[in-house]
């Protein structure tokens, strides 16, 4: 009898865990796992029942379900298929993976294309994940993040009929050693952004907004070139408008695996910066940066600036402080390149996407007309090349 109890208790515990997780999301957290009779299989099913209301809603669950049926058709001429491979992380990362996926969806809606994504769990899977799309006859494969650059180039040779869009992947002017075939490859477009310019404008705004003359930046890791570009641009921009500004900025001290997923560090670091007088904080580092933004939101009189996308939309918790975001427009860039691929005029090599500041939303009135004019001036100066951010990668 004791063993029966043991088994049932075990299953009950599992069910409790599931209830704990599922019940919050679903509608029926209450169920009676008390009926402890029947065979062990029945007991199990009963025990786990409460979680059945659970529904997984990944960003694109709907689209995919309707398309799943036609998946095999990708090899045919008529069906246009777009695949996306994320960098290590999730599709709903409120950052570049998500932006790229939104670009895929936008293009797919226009073109009536089929879409699918694979979230990379392990960096050694970049190649195999791309191959999964290649082998299934996808027409365009979007690979997100500079880390996938090499895998993308390799795949472009294996699948010469597929167009590859590499987000944040700089296509070098010279072919890498041992490269066979034409350079740059005809079926690879590297979607890159002058993040330093975006950061420069954010810095300029910060330099004008600050009253304490101290501004801060809470950053991911310097192992990721775009983060460095944002930082350097931000600092140069702030100094451009305000020579005496003091800039305190810091990178996450951990490795790549945690640098972008450590919101607690971001929050704590932002607080430490505010405690010593910073009144504008730039959070640039995925979820780590988001942690900084949310922390700033609870400090009166301190502004925060988001990164990559308009974070007004992705981090609503930061509304009290979020003046703007230093954007790189991944979504339209990806959509445009997909359209070009569909129309047969795919541009290879580097494709420079747009950057800029996000709308000020609720802060529209708080920012003086002078400041806005100055920002416009700086924007055109950056575009024409009259203003240099001074950032020089490599």
């Amino acid at each position: 009898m004791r063993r029966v109890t043991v088994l049932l208790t075990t299953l009950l515990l599992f069910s409790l865990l599931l209830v704990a997780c599922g019940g919050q999301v679903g509608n029926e957290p209450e169920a009676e796992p008390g009926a402890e009779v029947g065979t062990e299989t029945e007991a199990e099913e009963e025990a786990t029942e409460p979680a059945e209301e659970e529904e997984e809603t990944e960003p694109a669950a709907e689209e995919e379900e309707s398309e799943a049926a036609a998946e095999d058709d990708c090899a045919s001429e008529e069906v246009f298929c777009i695949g996306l491979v994320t960098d290590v992380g999730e599709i709903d990362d409120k950052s570049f993976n998500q932006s790229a996926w939104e670009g895929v969806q936008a293009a797919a809606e226009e073109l009536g294309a089929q879409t699918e994504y694979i979230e990379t769990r392990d960096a050694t899977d970049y190649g195999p994940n791309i191959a999964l799309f290649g082998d299934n006859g996808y027409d365009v494969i979007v690979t997100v993040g500079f880390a996938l650059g090499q895998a993308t180039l390799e795949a472009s040779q294996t699948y010469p009929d597929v167009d590859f869009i590499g987000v944040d992947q700089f296509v070098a002017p010279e072919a890498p050693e041992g490269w066979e075939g034409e350079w740059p490859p005809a079926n690879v477009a590297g979607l890159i952004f002058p993040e330093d310019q975006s950061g420069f404008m954010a810095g300029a705004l910060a330099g004008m907004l600050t009253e304490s003359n101290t501004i801060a930046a809470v950053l991911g890791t310097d192992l990721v070139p775009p983060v460095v570009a944002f930082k350097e641009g931000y600092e140069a921009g702030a100094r451009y408008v305000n020579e005496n500004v003091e800039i305190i900025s810091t990178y996450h001290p951990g490795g790549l695996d945690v640098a972008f997923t450590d919101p607690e560090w971001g929050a704590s670091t932002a607080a430490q910066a505010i405690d010593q007088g910073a009144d504008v904080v730039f959070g640039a580092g995925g979820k780590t940066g988001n942690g900084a933004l949310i922390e700033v939101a609870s400090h009166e009189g301190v502004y925060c600036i988001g990164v990559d996308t308009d974070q007004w939309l992705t981090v609503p918790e930061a509304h009290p402080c979020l003046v703007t975001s230093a954007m790189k427009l991944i979504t339209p860039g990806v959509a445009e390149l997909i359209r070009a691929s569909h129309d047969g005029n795919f541009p290879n090599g580097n494709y420079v996407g747009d950057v800029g500041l996000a709308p000020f939303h609720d802060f529209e009135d708080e920012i003086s007309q002078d400041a806005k004019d100055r920002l416009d001036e700086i924007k055109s100066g950056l575009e024409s090349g009259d203003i240099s951010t001074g950032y020089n990668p490599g």
Partner: protein
Amino acid sequence: MEAAATRPRERAFLQRYGTLTAVLVVALAIIIWAYTASAQQTQAVLASTIRQSTPLVLGALCGLYGERAGVINIGIEGQMLLAAFIGFLANVYTGNLIVAVTAGVLAGAAMGLFLAFMSVTLKMDQIIGGTVLNILAFGLTGYFYQAGLTTQGKLQPIALGPLADLPLVGPVLFNNPPITYLTLLLVGISHYVLFYTRWGLRTRAVGEHPRAADTLGINVYKMRYINVTLGGALAGLAGAFLTLEAVGSFERSMTNGRGFLALAIMIFGKWTPLGSWGAALLIGVTYALNTQFQFLGLVDIPHQFIGTLPYVLTIVVLAGFVGRARPPAADGVPYEKE
């Protein structure tokens, strides 16, 4: 070390507290010196120290209650993560922070109960039990997390009246959010409970010599169940701290190894609440200094070197000053009634 054991007790006693006093005096001197140099920065660093050490202390206390009763808990990370997630969900759906914290604590306690069940009733190896918790929490939170959930605020600092206006200690100690205060209290309470109450005596007896405790009529299983569950609740509080006080949002695997760090801190603190608190403060201050050094651009070396500071310092302090730590004798050994 053997020489130390044979030394007269008073000298060993003196030696132990002598080092402690020396460390405290030096630390105080440094703080005062720094404060006179830059009050604002010193406050910022110390406040950050308290913040960063909070989840670590709570995690260490979680491990402590279990191990004092003879159950190793390497599942602190998982307990924190799941609790952080549940607390986050409760905040999203109820918008009530008290309910959310309670939900997080209960989730941690449920994980603790599960660990107790595995290690006491099933007599599973306790390291495996903890690993099960870690993987399970990682998988469940990752699988069930959905994007687009927005929390409704986070716990805000409460200034403790005139205390908060004191120089230095005011902003650092008396202007914190609730879980941070609670943590400071819990360190003291845990110390008192473990070493000055009947309950603590029984807990330690069960962890040191369960057979003898059993003979004296203490229910070993019950003590272990309660202590491990209690520990789970503390880890739950740490998780709640992460999502409801520190960040205000949940992200996958956001504990980032803090549970393991807490485990190290508990051992570093020699299985005592005050020692663990000291160890957590040490780690916390190195984190804060790490950031401060980068802020100031003080040192022109790659930041990876500064990044190793907390860990190298821990090893140095551990090897140089703390040395051998003795866990409860029956730690990790399932108890079989005769």
